């Protein structure tokens, strides 16, 4: 499936700008466990007060990447764990027989952040929320590309978000995780949409089942593998493929200069 990436915005591990991610892809910068959250000053305080750290990461990237089409762009929100800090607090309250917070309950569903995005922007376009284990990033991308193609959309927004899981769930985590959000504004790679003189980079995604059925998850988050690939672009390696294995799949991401 061919596509172009009109915008890429990522925030995590103290890396927040394109320059930061370029430096990361070149191995000059690493990820820190702790990081500041986006301020989101554009959202009125009365709406902002309900945003969890998870929601702030997601909305910052979504609003920045889709700035040109906030009210109309269809979207896919993907996350492996979702806003688990919120969910586990609710579960603890249930166990302690405490009354549940109605606000936290309402905002704990997997599509809550997509809902907040829709309310803030007034966007009524189709929106999906996805969770697919360690493959959540690429399955989100696959879903976005399928919708883009099947519906002939001009563009679609993919928002992938992850927060470190609460301590009690940490022993079950196999990957080296970091709190991060990454939003991509994707468009079809139709020639008509790309100006002739624009040296657009065309990406292509394909996947197959992993016949080896590895027992272990890939130690690296797919979103970080993607960002390394995306920001690793330069004049010397215009055409290149990256292969990313997970327990169940093999993902192939290719880019070529137009």
């Amino acid at each position, binding site marked *: 499936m061919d596509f172009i990436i009109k915008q890429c915005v990522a925030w995590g591990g103290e890396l927040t700008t394109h320059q930061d991610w370029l430096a990361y892809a070149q191995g000059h910068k690493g990820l820190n466990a702790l990081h500041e959250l986006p301020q989101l000053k554009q959202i009125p305080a009365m709406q902002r007060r309900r945003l969890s750290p998870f929601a702030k990461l997601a909305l910052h990237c979504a609003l920045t990447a889709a700035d040109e089409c906030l009210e109309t762009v269809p979207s896919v929100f993907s996350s492996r764990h979702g806003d688990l800090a919120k969910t586990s607090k609710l579960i603890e309250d249930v166990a302690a027989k405490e009354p*549940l*917070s109605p*606000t936290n309950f309402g905002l704990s569903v997997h599509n809550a952040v997509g809902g907040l995005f829709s309310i803030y922007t007034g966007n009524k376009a189709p929106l999906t929320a996805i969770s697919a284990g360690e493959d959540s990033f690429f399955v989100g991308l696959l879903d976005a590309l399928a919708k883009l193609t099947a519906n002939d959309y001009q563009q679609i927004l993919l928002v992938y978000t992850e927060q470190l899981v609460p301590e009690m769930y940490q022993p079950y985590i196999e990957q080296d995780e970091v709190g991060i959000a990454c939003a991509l504004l994707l468009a079809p790679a139709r020639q008509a949409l790309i100006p002739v003189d624009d040296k657009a980079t065309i990406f292509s995604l394909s996947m197959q089942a992993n016949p080896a059925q590895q027992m272990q998850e890939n130690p690296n988050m797919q979103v970080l593998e993607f960002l390394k690939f995306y920001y690793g672009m330069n004049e010397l390696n215009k055409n290149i493929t990256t292969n990313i294995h997970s327990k169940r799949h093999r993902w192939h991401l290719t880019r070529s200069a137009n």
Partner: protein
Amino acid sequence: MKELQVNDLSIEVKKLIIDTLDLEDITPADIEDDAALFVDGLGLDSIDALELGVAIKKTYQVKIDNNSDDSKKHFYSVKTLCEFIAGNRS
């Protein structure tokens, strides 16, 4: 003495509102006793009403019936909330 107790409760309730509803940049002094809490006044919404009901129940062991006309009166302002709590707390 009675006057002082009501005043203390009013500040306590204002702090409860601010903490429960994560009202950034608002202090108890910014909330007037008689001003409307919802819509026109402080700008709280129906989810806030539910949230506040839970917090008041937890803090003062006072139960407020949802959606009754009485509960709308009790939730009108800090003053009406304080009167309701003072009259019903155990």
